[in-house]
């Protein structure tokens, strides 16, 4: 590894680690209803919203009430977005005269942004009006992120409380939006626009190039949306190629900021968790398990991307820069792999390079991150509640080994919680393996695959991993914009989101009704290296056993072919 590559990675991780306790501690105060430095500014607005929407900020919901409020809000959001996308041709802020979306594409896109996936079967600059980008997508970027964070906080309250309530969905949502997402987005948007990300409502600009050709330069209110797209682990690009686009991510500074924002809230929420359960060692243990998985993945992708097909050297090509197909000069390999690992560890899904053109192993790790359920820091809220599902499973297995009823943070984990955890985990093989398997044999579905050979299987596998994991990144050669895939990927996104959230809320409700038991000699400690190792092992074994056969036929087969010099 070159010194400059090492320095960039170290600085990135160092900055994130330094910010984690500040942001994490701040969020704990927000969710505990405490005063923060933004309270004087935001609380009039907050109270105004409660009054307008008929919300009683004191009322506490049981898990069922919380779930109904969450589902109703998401359903309304979906419908509104669907209508905006269908009707955008008739609505204002559309200088390019972009027509309404087809029904299947609008369904796919509306599901995608409501579920915090931000899978994009359209290309932003040719498929969306500015109104759709702002009122439709920017809004969902905010509220879908806040939904995930709210659900996590409900689960944490379930671990802490004993009166059966888990909080209030509207209050958690509004406080997340006003105190966390809005101020951080504004901060990022200012830096981004200063670095060169456009923020205007103008028509695309015609230019006459130096050689006299015509070039049309896309414009739009981009900076404000890109800020929240990174912060809320949304990931939907303003422009078609996402943060590889020089107007979406123009400089190494904008790139660094956008990368930090991918992981900032997911990392900090682990600290928030430790603080809210009043035992920071618990947060630290989960953070350590996530950190181990993150670094292992990062270095695998990094070293994989130093390689290229052996035939290139024979063609007289100087390959010391590594695999540069689909990567930008200003970022090079190191910033591309840092991004790829971060965006799939978290369920962000934005890209600054094209994962489809990664080396076979370099592309496998991002896919594997998504298959694990994106629990390596993961999506805002979603990553940690996903990891807590694995924690439930781990304490259950540990409980079997020591022969006692398993406990977590003083709450007994019983048959009900374990069953619910397994339902949640089962969404992954259902959405990924089952849907990809059907897609790779049905002719109507398989027609979307761009490449022959094992890479073709990787493309469809990546698509359904991304949808089910609510990631949104793609092996973009895959022709996803067909009625079949728009519909099936839409269903996979819904399954991956809500078949995860509902069991999580049910677990929260079940735990919230339990009285804590005192720790005894037979209690398995859920901090310390032994637990971290067990947790990492459970995550890897569940993922490994479920997905290894598919990975062997796709990226692993392709890797073996590549080192033999084969091509397809």
């Amino acid at each position, binding site marked *: 590894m070159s010194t400059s590559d090492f320095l960039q990675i170290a600085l990135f991780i160092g900055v994130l680690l330094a910010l984690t306790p500040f942001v994490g501690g701040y969020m704990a105060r927000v969710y505990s209803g405490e005063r923060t430095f933004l309270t004087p500014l935001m609380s009039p607005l907050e109270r105004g919203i409660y009054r307008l929407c008929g919300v009683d900020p004191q009322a506490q919901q049981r898990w069922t009430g919380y779930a109904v409020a969450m589902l109703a809000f998401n359903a*309304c959001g979906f419908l509104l977005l669907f209508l905006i996308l269908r009707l955008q041709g008739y609505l204002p802020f559309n200088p390019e005269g972009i027509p309404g979306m087809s029904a299947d594409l609008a369904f796919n896109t509306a599901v995608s942004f409501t579920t915090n996936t931000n899978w994009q079967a359209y290309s932003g600059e040719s498929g969306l009006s500015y109104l759709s980008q702002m009122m439709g997508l*920017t809004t969902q970027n905010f509220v879908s992120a806040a939904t995930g964070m709210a659900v996590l906080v409900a689960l944490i309250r379930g671990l802490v409380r004993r009166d059966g309530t888990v909080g209030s969905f509207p209050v958690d949502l509004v406080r997340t939006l006003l105190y966390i997402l809005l101020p951080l987005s504004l901060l990022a948007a200012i830096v981004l626009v200063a670095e060169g990300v456009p923020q205007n409502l103008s028509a695309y*600009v015609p230019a*006459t190039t130096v050689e006299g050709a015509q070039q049309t330069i896309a414009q739009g209110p981009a900076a404000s949306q890109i800020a929240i797209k990174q912060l809320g682990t949304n990931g939907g690009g303003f422009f078609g190629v996402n943060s590889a686009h020089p107007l979406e991510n123009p400089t190494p500074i904008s790139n660094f900021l956008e990368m930090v924002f991918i992981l900032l809230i997911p990392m900090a929420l682990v600290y928030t968790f430790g603080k809210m359960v009043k035992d920071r060692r618990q947060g630290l243990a989960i953070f350590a398990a996530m950190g181990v998985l993150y670094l292992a993945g990062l270095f695998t992708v990094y070293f994989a991307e130093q390689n290229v097909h052996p035939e290139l050297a024979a063609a007289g090509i100087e390959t010391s820069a590594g695999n540069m197909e689909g990567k*930008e000069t200003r970022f090079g390999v190191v910033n591309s792999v840092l991004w790829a690992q971060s965006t799939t560890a978290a369920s962000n899904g934005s890209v600054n390079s*094209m994962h489809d053109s990664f080396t076979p192993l370099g592309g496998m790790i991002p896919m594997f991150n998504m298959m694990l359920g994106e629990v390596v820091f993961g999506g805002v809220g979603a990553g940690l509640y996903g990891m807590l599902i694995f924690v439930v499973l781990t304490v259950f297995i540990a409980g079997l080994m020591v022969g006692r009823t398993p406990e977590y943070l003083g709450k007994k984990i019983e048959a009900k919680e374990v069953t619910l955890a397994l339902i949640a985990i089962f969404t992954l093989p259902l959405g990924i393996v089952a849907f990809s398997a059907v897609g790779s044999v049905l002719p109507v579905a398989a027609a979307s695959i761009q490449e022959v050979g094992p890479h073709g299987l990787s493309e469809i596998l990546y698509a359904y991993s991304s949808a089910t994991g609510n990631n949104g990144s793609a092996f973009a050669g895959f022709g996803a914009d067909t009625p079949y895939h728009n519909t099936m990927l839409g269903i996979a996104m819904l399954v991956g989101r809500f078949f995860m959230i509902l069991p999580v809320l049910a677990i929260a409700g079940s735990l919230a009704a339990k009285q804590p038991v005192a720790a005894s000699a037979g209690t398995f400690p859920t901090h310390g290296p032994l637990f971290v190792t067990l947790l990492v092992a459970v995550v890897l074994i569940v993922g490994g056993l479920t997905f290894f056969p598919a990975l062997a036929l796709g990226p692993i087969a392709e890797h073996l072919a590549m080192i033999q010099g084969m091509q397809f």
Partner: protein
Amino acid sequence: MIQQQIFSALRLIVVATLLFGLAYPLGFTLFAQTMFPHQAGGSLIERDGQVVGSRLVGQVFTQVEYFHPRPSLAGDGYDAADSDASNLGQTSAELLQLMSIRAEAFRASSGDGPVPIELVTASGSGLDPHISPAAAARQVARVAAARGLAEHEVEALVIRFTEGRTFGILGEPRVNVLELNLALDSLAADES
């Protein structure tokens, strides 16, 4: 109960849309246009009162007297309203063949020797405004000969337009092709 929940949810999404879908982006547009009008407008470059492009967006150069950018898959090449990449995998016969054709073409125009990999690979956006200093150095002799300039003059210009890593750490060293070519043209205009 459920009806009340749905009514409340409806009001919430409407308020959120007004706040985050209109007030936030429109308010920020006003702020950005006031504070950073050049950047917020897409960092456009004008020459003789005409927009020739954006500093941040690459464009096509095929003539021998200009530095050439990377191959592009955006539209017909550097279509800045249609960003795109090849998305071909490393074992794709099509990609490998494309790369050797590009390498041969480059050697034919710019002399024998190894070709830096980014000159035969398409970028992620198809709009990459940069090439590496090595890729620029490889084109100096061709550009100098075509313009009747001394190689060291062109070389000096390349060095002037080479951006290092930000703070010495972030990103990769690079040369902005459009800015370099504009400087070449104004160099010629000064001398004539």
